[in-house]
């Protein structure tokens, strides 16, 4: 799912008629070239049709974010605005505290990602490698927690933040997200899979447990770390529920809660679609960038890790 392929495909998809070289020529091609060819054509037709359904809404939305309100309402299908206007984007910086929301989201996502990488790998390493009394209990504790559905946590989270006096603070928004059982498991499973010999060597050389973990084991865990980074960043960037119940001040709005308030609030009334769509476009960009960059990287690094 790399960007490279994506870029070449716009033309490749159309140009690749039946002449596309089958990867396995041989008997199948000799026997049923016509059938394969016909099947391939059907596949392309289906795929292009489906791809249009999946991609077109985004293209239309981007186009509409550059339209005037009236234009967006009257010509919902037009890909080219009557007059290209940046009014919607300008309003995001004047009528709406969009930069503030963006900053809050960024702050939360970065700290949560760093926290999860650190705490989850620490715990994962301990569960995988270190022998200590109660390890099985801790392991079962995380297993049990895995099954808890996120959506039923809304009320409980609010209650505890109230009790601890953390409601409506950055710490209340961030700290509960700093570690997840899922992240701990991803890290544990990864550490389970790498040979113990390298660490033993480090230990014999006299490195302490943390030192071994930090400078020997963690660098080897890059593939799993990248997985945790992506999951954490994307998860906390897109998180809505927790930020609904952990804060109420407008200054603490993240992109999700802030933009959601655009939809239901005053600015959501009437036909102010360009404004909302512009917000949706801007809030999607960071995750989209992450997605396109890391998609390839994950595959490369995991492939590389196998050598070790």
């Amino acid at each position, binding site marked *: 799912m790399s960007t490279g*392929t994506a870029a*070449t*495909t716009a033309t*490749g*998809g159309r*140009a690749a008629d039946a002449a596309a070289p089958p990867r396995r020529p041989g*008997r199948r091609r000799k026997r049923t070239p016509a059938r394969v060819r016909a*099947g*391939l054509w059907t596949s*392309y037709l*289906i795929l292009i049709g*489906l791809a249009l359904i999946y991609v077109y809404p985004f293209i*239309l939305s981007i186009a509409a974010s550059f339209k005037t309100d009236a234009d*967006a309402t009257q010509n*919902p299908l037009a890909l080219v605005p009557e007059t290209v206007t940046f009014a919607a984007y300008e309003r995001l910086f004047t009528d709406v505290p969009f930069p503030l929301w963006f900053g809050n989201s960024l702050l939360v996502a970065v700290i949560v990602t760093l926290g999860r990488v650190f705490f989850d790998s620490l*715990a994962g390493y*301990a569960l995988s490698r*270190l*022998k*200590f009394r109660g390890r099985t209990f801790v392991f079962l*504790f*995380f297993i049990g*927690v895995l*099954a808890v*559905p996120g*959506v*039923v*946590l809304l*009320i*409980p*989270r*609010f*209650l*505890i933040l109230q*009790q601890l006096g953390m409601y409506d603070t950055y710490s209340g928004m961030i700290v509960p997200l*700093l570690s997840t059982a*899922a992240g701990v*498991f991803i890290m*544990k*499973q990864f550490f389970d*899979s790498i040979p113990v010999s390298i660490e033993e060597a480090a*230990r014999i050389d006299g*490195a302490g447990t*943390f*030192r071994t973990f930090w400078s020997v084991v963690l660098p080897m865990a890059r593939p799993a770390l990248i997985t945790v980074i992506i*999951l954490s960043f994307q*998860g906390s960037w897109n998180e809505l*529920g927790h930020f609904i*119940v952990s804060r109420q001040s407008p200054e603490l709005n993240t992109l999700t809660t802030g*933009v959601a308030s655009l*939809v*239901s609030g005053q600015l959501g009334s009437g036909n102010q*679609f360009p404004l909302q769509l512009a917000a*949706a476009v801007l*809030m*999607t960009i960071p*995750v989209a960038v992450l997605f396109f960059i890391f998609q390839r990287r*994950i595959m490369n690094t*995991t492939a590389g890790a*196998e050598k070790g």
Partner: protein
Amino acid sequence: MSGVASGSRRGGGIRRGEARAGWIFVAPAVVIVGVFLAIPIVLALWVSFSDWNGFRSPLNPNVNFVGLENYAAITVDPGLDQENFGRAVRNNLWYVVFVVPLQTIVALLLAVQVNRAVLRGRGFFRTAFYFPSVTSTVAIVIVFQFLFTASGAVNAVLGFFGIDGPNWFNDPSGIFHNLLATVGVTSPPPALAQDGPLGITWWEWFAGPSVAMSSLIMLAIFTTSGTFMLLYLAGLQNIGGEIDEAARVDGAGPVRTFFSITLPMLRPTTFTVLTLGLIGSWQVFDQIYVLGGSTAGGTITTPAFLAYETSFNDLQWGQGAAIAFILFVFIILLTLFQRWLLRERNPRMRTPRISRAAATLAADSGPATDPTTRALSSADVDDELSKGDRS
């Protein structure tokens, strides 16, 4: 590395201090998860048995234990609370009935098409289908609201075919009621006019998803099918092309090959997709919240949203918590069922290396599928991670 000097040398055996280190290492994660997940659940359980009204702490002495009162109010005591809960369950039930099979079929269709060995541009198609899963629900809802307004793009397209599209997100009418109306049935037959479960008449139970909910069903399929496509792709790559080819050589046509060979071999993946879908689609919250919850005559309200609204807006915390716990138990049961199912089939569930990362990524595709992460990471992702990197 130079830091590993003799200065930091520790006396005694290599294993010395390991127990202490172990606890120190797990402590932050255990404390965070314990304080912000395990303890709060206990606190909320207490609230669901209390008459706490949101003032001061739920642990203050003025709060009384009321037994099962809150649970009774929404399940057995006739009244508005019961009806609201009944409608929320009805809404979500129809949502599940449509979303789970449809997203599975679409995901399978996408995967089978993308998986063709001779296909050019697989990367592009995979990205295109998966991208909606990565974006936030808030953004997707905005896009859908824009597309599905009364004079929006969807109705414009329908207009080409001479169809007068509905006012999607604001239309509370049930689609089965609408179908019946086309043949002249607009009021319930006597048998269906009686009360069914949870204080709702059978006629209402059988209304089907409202038009508004149908838009949300489409939204769900749009955002989740890419995720599940990746799972199916993993399954397909696992099967490999050889068996398929052998069947073709033996003279089976593509349709026959698909239904007699591919589909049965994909059964473990299908189980995963179905159960994950089942668990996920009982947790719809974000979409409903962004849309304002009570629009479309309350026909898009789900139990998850009702729990939130009852607590935070109506300040009936006990009742809200009770709804949340009923949902909690129900979803846990589904999860246990899934784990049991997958444990049986684990050996055949191995997924190939390439798709591992993708499936991991897929695991947390957003708030809507958050449970997916959990279920997946326990069942599949771990498997994949540990297995793949050893080989």
